[in-house]
């Protein structure tokens, strides 16, 4: 594959692509520029897709010494016009380089109404030695939304993959990820927080694979969900698969209801019930927001969460 300047990008062994990649490539007409080559520090790229658009696929290469931010906006409006939104990104982060990737998947269809959108997003990420990949996803789901990230990390790489999902009625949101620790000393952190209302479904599938060569892997995975109403659904499948014997791997998974004693504490101080619940839920979700996100993106994500807690879809 070549970029617009004709420079060869995306060579070397990549993690296996999934079916979303094939669909996006088949239906796609490019991913912003068909291939991004980042050579300077501080570059920022944004892509956008919504109903009516063609699928998107492409590759991103971040050269050694470069840092880049990639923002992908997926906007579901509830339109019936070509409601199929596949995206595939093949990402290579060369040794010592850093990529920040933010996916903002919003749904502006009226609350409580079904939309037709099928959102499929797949990224296959190859991290060189000492490279960093920091990803944050906020997803409100749709008829079917699946955001899938597969990472293969080389020696001393740093992976962070936090996410927040917001599953209102008739919304399905699936966050699936896989991190292969293929060499020694990879540091991985994943914190996923989600909420679901009646008729909404959240799915978290997270896998950490530590290969035989992955000694001194330091990896932590946590998924915590709040079921806000009777009839909300959350499915979680955290997996650790470890073939090395000198690693620190941990995972935690909880799904439950809001702590009524905490709600009472806030109400005793005069905060109305609905505000008390929103305050506790908001704080629970915001803990997954990474500190590396810039102010404007953070504000955007917080606004999306606040709108959702206020009754939007």
């Amino acid at each position, binding site marked *: 594959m070549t970029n617009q300047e004709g420079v060869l990008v995306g060579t070397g062994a990549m993690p296996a692509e999934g079916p979303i990649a094939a669909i996006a490539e088949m239906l796609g007409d490019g991913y912003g520029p068909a291939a991004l080559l980042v050579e300077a520090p501080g570059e920022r790229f944004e892509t956008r897709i919504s109903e009516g658009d063609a699928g998107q696929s492409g590759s991103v290469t971040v050269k050694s010494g470069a840092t880049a931010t990639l923002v992908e906006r997926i906007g579901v409006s509830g339109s019936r016009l070509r409601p199929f939104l596949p995206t595939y990104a093949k990402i290579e982060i060369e040794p010592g380089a850093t990529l920040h990737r933010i996916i903002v998947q919003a749904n502006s269809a009226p609350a409580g109404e079904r939309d037709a959108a099928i959102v499929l997003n797949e990224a296959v990420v190859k991290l060189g030695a000492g490279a960093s990949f920091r990803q944050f996803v906020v997803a409100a789901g749709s008829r079917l939304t699946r955001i899938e990230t597969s990472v293969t990390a080389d020696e001393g790489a740093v992976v962070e993959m936090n996410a927040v999902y917001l599953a209102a009625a008739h919304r399905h949101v699936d966050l699936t990820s896989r991190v292969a620790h293929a060499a020694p000393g990879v540091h991985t952190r994943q914190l996923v927080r989600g909420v679901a209302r009646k008729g909404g479904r959240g799915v978290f599938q997270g896998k950490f694979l530590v290969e035989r060569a992955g000694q001194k892997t330091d990896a932590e995975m946590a998924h915590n969900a709040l079921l806000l109403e009777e009839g909300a659904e959350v499915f979680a499948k955290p997996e650790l698969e470890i073939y090395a014997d000198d690693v620190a791997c941990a995972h935690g998974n909880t799904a439950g209801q809001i702590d*009524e004693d*905490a709600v*009472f*504490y806030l*109400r*005793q101080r005069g*905060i109305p*019930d609905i505000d008390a619940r929103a305050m506790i839920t*908001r704080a629970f979700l915001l803990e997954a927001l990474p500190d590396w996100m810039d102010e404007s993106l953070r504000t955007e994500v917080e606004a999306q969460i606040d709108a959702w807690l206020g009754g939007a879809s």
Partner: protein
Amino acid sequence: MLELNNLHARVVPEDGPSREILKGLSLAVPAGEVHAIMGPNGSGKSTLSYVLTGKHGYDVTAGSATFDGDDLLSLAPEARAAKGLFLSFQYPLEIAGVPVMTFVRAAMNSQHKARGEPEVSAPEFLKLSKLAATKLRIDPDMLKRPLNVGFSGGEKKRLEIYQMLMLEPRFMILDETDSGLDIDALKVVAEGVNALRGPGRGMLVITHYQRLLDYIKPDRVHILSAGRIVKSGGPDLALELEKSGYDQFLKVD
């Protein structure tokens, strides 16, 4: 100010049978007075504080509770708070991700809104907060941290009184506020509480021990046993209890 008449209440756990805890409790705290409630474990002290503030899981089966003549029991917890009822919790809750000041400001503005009063401006709020923190010797950095998360038992109790000073309630219930406090912290907390004593305010101090009452001097002392007040008296009653224990009064029951 606060009048309880023949109050019967049961605790209704999510699993398991309900149990009657308060069995005909009558009590009147006039404005301007501080009353202490003492009693052994299981006598219903904490249940009383929860019933008065409207916690879920407690059912009032008979009797009445009024505040300034208005029925208290039909009001939501937040409406009772807006009327000026404040509970200093025996075990303050940890609220992850909500900084102390954000929380107290939200509480203050919610109460003001409910009472039709204007919001407190940010500079005014900061001024009040600084005053309260200084009075209670609270490190200002603590007020930026999430509410009670990782705080020691003593810090949590101090923070309850900080909230009390900020919200300026008209009636305060102190549930075992002395537990978890060393003697120096106890003095600081008592000073904070005493600062709120006044002709328009009432207070119910729930405690096991006489110690707290050395610093927060009550006008009346009541002994609670098996869900009922079995004896009432002046401040001397607490001293008598400290000397000879609860047994002599429980026999009355």
